[in-house]
């Protein structure tokens, strides 16, 4: 039981970071990026390529981050920039559709380049665990959880302490007013999108250390969107607790119903929440 919870919490922090990228785009830009999961998998393949060159997975995170940042910037310029001035509902709908097409495109492009085999990166330390209060804790999972916490702190500092971060918050609150106050909205959008995709480099690496194949992107996007809805749309501080919540629920369901219904439980919770409490569980007043 305790061991199950440990895995639940570690998985949950992974869900939290995946959700962070989606929540950032959704909260600030009102874009729903269905391709986020696929971009995570793309990052995993870049990481695989780097590890074949001999780079340690954790050291390759910054490289993958830069690669995804540039890729996302190009993607935004070519596909998403025309939606900037749409009203909110049209923005969500069109970005959802465009990213849906992109997801299919990228999934199959990845299959063509890397074949559909299941891959994973296994450095020497991948099996290491240590004991704490009689519970086994895997080293990589713990590192992932720490990265999640650091990432959210950094993002918080970025949004509250830097000029650019403040302009991001301004755009998320009122795009038109921000634009009138001299904020460069399209640059803010471009950068926010690229940042939120580059955040995917951390889940990329954590997933690459488990296992991945070209078409699992949607599966990971689903984990992310469940957490986003749980935490309340656009609330980036809610994603970690909501991620842990989902991780623990899944772990409990494995404990009770067995592993084959793990996915179903998470999704069922998600649908129930969409129907019953559409505003999310961890909503904070005045959160960005």
């Amino acid at each position, binding site marked *: 039981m305790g061991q199950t919870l440990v895995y639940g919490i570690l998985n949950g922090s992974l869900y939290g970071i995946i959700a962070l990228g989606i929540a950032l785009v959704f909260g600030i830009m009102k874009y729903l990026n269905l391709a986020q999961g696929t971009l995570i998998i793309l990052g995993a393949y870049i990481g695989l390529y780097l590890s074949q060159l001999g780079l340690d997975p954790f050291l390759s995170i910054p490289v993958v981050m830069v690669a995804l940042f540039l890729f996302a910037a190009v993607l935004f310029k070519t596909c998403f920039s025309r939606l900037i001035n749409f009203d909110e509902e049209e923005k969500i709908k069109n970005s959802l559709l465009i990213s849906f097409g992109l997801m299919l495109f990228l999934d199959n492009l990845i299959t063509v380049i890397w074949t559909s085999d299941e891959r994973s990166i296994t450095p020497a330390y991948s099996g290491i665990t240590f004991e704490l209060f009689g519970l086994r804790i895997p080293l990589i999972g713990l590192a992932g959880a720490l990265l999640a916490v650091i990432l959210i702190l950094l993002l918080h500092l970025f949004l509250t302490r830097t000029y650019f971060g403040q302009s991001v918050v301004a755009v998320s609150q009122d795009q038109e007013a921000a634009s009138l106050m001299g904020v460069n909205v399209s640059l803010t959008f471009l950068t926010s999108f690229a940042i939120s995709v580059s955040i995917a480099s951390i889940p990329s690496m954590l997933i690459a250390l488990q296992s991945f194949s070209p078409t699992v992107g949607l599966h990971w996007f689903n984990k992310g969107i469940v957490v986003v809805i749980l935490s309340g749309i656009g609330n980036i501080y809610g994603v970690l607790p909501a991620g842990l919540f989902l991780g623990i629920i899944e772990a409990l369901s494995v404990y009770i119903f067995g592993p084959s219904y793990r*996915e179903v439980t998470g999704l069922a919770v998600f649908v129930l929440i969409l129907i019953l409490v559409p505003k999310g569980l961890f909503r904070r007043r005045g959160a960005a």
Partner: protein
Amino acid sequence: MHSRKIIPVILLLAVIALFPVMTRSEYILNIMITFFLYVILSESWNLIGGFAGQISLGHSAFFGIGALVTRLVWLSGIPVIPALFAGGIGAAALACSVGIPCLRMTQAYFPIGTLALAMIAQITIGNIFPLPGSLSSEYVAAYNLSSRYYLAFAVGIFTVLTVYLFARSKKGLALVAIRDDEGAAAAVGVKPFQHKILALLVSSFMAGLGGGIFAYQHVSYFYSAPFELSWAFLPTLTTFIGGLGTISGPIIGSVAFLALSELFVLNLGEIHLLVFGATFVLIVMFLPKGLFSLSVGIRSFLRDWALRLIGRGEAKKL
């Protein structure tokens, strides 16, 4: 439909109806059955996605339930046509129980919510029926491809006709009004929720019939196969690419999808999906009314151009 269009359509249908007589090639007949299946699925999706404006990414759940119910009922010894209807009703029942709560979600969450439902259905059915279902030897001995062909053809015509009539009925017009401006439609007394429910029920019933055709056509398949998400993505792609909220759009899209997937069938990966994904993005960005609007646009451009030529000629004569 204009009366002058009816004759070519009937001729085309007659030619299609003669296919099993003209050819014995199983390949061609199976391709045609797949084409009917795509049309049924796309046209039924078009009702909820195109005419009602609710982009569902969970159509595979209805398709799959239709396949599952039809297969089980048919294999229990009941003739296939009642089994097919049972499948349609099963899909509509699923829509009643889980689809209607989804319609309460605001527009952005409907696609994600239905996607989640489709995934739940796929995993659950995969867990309950882990083994593929095969036909017993007596069913295999009685297997006759042209009966599959005609049944699929009939259901295809039924689906297109239903969507056509529904779209032109008072309810269909109300649906389009709700899609275009829900507030205004509600203000003049059109009840948005009721109309959306009706569209979802009719749409899921027809998707269930499509699933039944799938179950009738295939000798052996995993029960979770018709629940795969590709069956939810397919009608979204074909309808968007052909033309959302038009009758011929989903048919054009299905032809294009089938042609492309046959063209690339021997290649690594699913290149047709790669092409379709890219086309889909371009269509959403630049041609939101689909390829159908392109043909309409070209036709009206040509007509204008011809009229101008004639007009200029007449002016010269004078």
